[in-house]
């Protein structure tokens, strides 16, 4: 089982002519968890990842895998699996051949392309020309390329973009499972809500600079915490909560409790002998603080 190494960004900077795309990024991405790399359009996510992967030369600074630059890795595809936003394949080539080209280049076993297609659910489509693939299938093929060498580190640029709800659920489980195996998983997105249920840690950049880094929950800075709860006997539930001193309001799908945490509400209902049909902590603060961090007007 390949294990992950930390990804280390140190003072990474890139300027395109007058445009400062990335400036002085310093942070470490730890193995064993999924890290979200977030920022609005044009924030510099893709540029940072391309520098990490040796495709774009930094103006200054470094980005390494446990101290080794991508170009200096002994067996890159077996150490790091990457898929980048841009569709980068010859449309006339079949998916299996597309993967075979790079498997051969990296000296991977002959079985690697089929194994990778299998992992992303494209087994039945391996002989089709990639030009006829749907957006979601291309996204999966990109992921198959990343998984080709069974790497300990995954670097994925906007992997969720273009996937249907089922695909999103599937990739979420896959990435979580890979992190649980001790691999390093870094995924970028311009939408917090898109990765909110997948990531443990977030790194947020805006206009090329780091604006926040920490656990996902650290974003939840709002003081008003809400719990949404539901029971067959909704009126009694509401009465119990009001008695306990909470402020409640009725929603179509349950009762919204202000300034509460799910554990306490669950215990109250249990003590009152009310079977719950739903209980969840609302994190309305996340998206709010994300927008505040990247600036209200956000992008570009």
């Amino acid at each position, binding site marked *: 089982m390949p294990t992950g190494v930390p990804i280390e960004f140190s003072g990474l900077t890139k300027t395109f002519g007058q445009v400062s795309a990335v400036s002085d990024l310093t942070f470490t991405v730890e193995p064993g968890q999924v890290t979200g790399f977030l920022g609005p359009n044009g924030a510099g996510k893709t540029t940072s990842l391309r520098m990490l*992967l*040796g*495709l774009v030369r930094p103006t200054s600074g470094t980005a390494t895998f446990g101290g080794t630059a991508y*170009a200096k890795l002994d067996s890159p*595809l077996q150490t790091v699996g990457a898929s980048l936003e841009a569709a980068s394949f010859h449309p006339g080539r079949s998916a299996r051949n597309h993967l*075979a*080209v790079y498997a051969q280049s*990296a000296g991977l076993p002959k079985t690697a392309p089929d194994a990778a297609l299998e992992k992303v659910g494209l087994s039945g489509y391996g002989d089709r020309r990639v030009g006829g693939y749907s957006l979601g299938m291309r996204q999966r093929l990109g992921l198959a*390329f990343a998984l080709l060498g069974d790497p300990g580190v995954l670097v994925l640029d906007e992997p969720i973009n273009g996937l249907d709800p089922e695909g999103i659920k599937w990739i979420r489980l896959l990435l979580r499972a890979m992190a649980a195996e001790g691999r390093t998983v870094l995924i970028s997105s311009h939408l917090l809500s898109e990765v909110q249920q997948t990531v443990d840690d977030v790194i947020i950049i805006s206009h090329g600079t780091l604006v926040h880094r920490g656990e996902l929950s650290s974003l939840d800075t709002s003081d008003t915490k809400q719990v949404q709860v539901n029971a067959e006997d909704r009126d009694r539930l509401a009465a119990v909560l009001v008695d306990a001193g909470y402020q409640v309001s009725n929603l179509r799908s349950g009762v919204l409790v202000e300034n509460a945490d799910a554990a306490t509400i669950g215990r109250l209902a249990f003590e009152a002998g009310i079977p719950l049909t739903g209980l969840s902590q609302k994190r309305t603060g996340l998206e709010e603080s994300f927008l505040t961090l990247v600036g209200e007007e956000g992008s570009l």
Partner: protein
Amino acid sequence: MSAGYLGAVRSEFTKVRTTRLWWVLLVIMAAYVALCAGGMAAILGGLGGGANGPAIPEAQLPLLVYSFATSVGYVFPVLFGALAVTSEFRFQSLTPTFLANPRRGIVLGGKATTLLVVGAVFGVVALIASIGLGASLLAAFGIDPLLGEPDTWAFVGRSILAMALWSAIGVGLGVLVPSQVAAIVIVLAFTQFVEPLLRLAASFTDWSAQVAQFLPGAASDALVGASIYTAMSGGSAGLDWWQGGLVLVAYAAIATLIGFFTSWRRDVS
């Protein structure tokens, strides 16, 4: 362990093999070469018995006919070599290519090696087309197709080498001019108009003729040792065959090297 150079060569062969372009170009080239060689064999062979017989001695006819393999066929390996590089830029497949092997010089070396071999294959097919049709037509007109002569087979070997080198020149052009459209336009314009005109114009004065023998098409004719141009210009003593070969090697190497330091090492985004 990284698969290095051998992996790069294997990967580049798979790239060539797994899209349709190679056989499409091979089929067009074979048809075009067969048409030209067959047409020339028919004209020269037919004229041979007539009153205004050709100025070309009969013993030179076969190689002249066979040399259409290179003199009209060479544009195909150049085009194929150039497209092998420019399509990587066009379809942004340099990203996975450089992810699989970040040693860009080795990747380019693997590509050039592969395209040399593919160019040789183009050469073999072009010669099958020109000799296949040309020899039978010549024989039909009672001219000895000279297939038993060692000279003919040395010519065949030099022609295959020329086609291999043309393909490598295509690779050089592709890295030098990564824009697909621009590369295609340059290949067609240069091979079909610019160079033939230059060679014609240059033949009027001595010093320009000296310079013109270093044009790639002229060098290729020198390497092959027979062509319609040399026959028309009275078989002037140009470069030796090996000198012609070296000139082609130089074109390929210089273009590839400059392309490596400019486009190939650039940021991929």
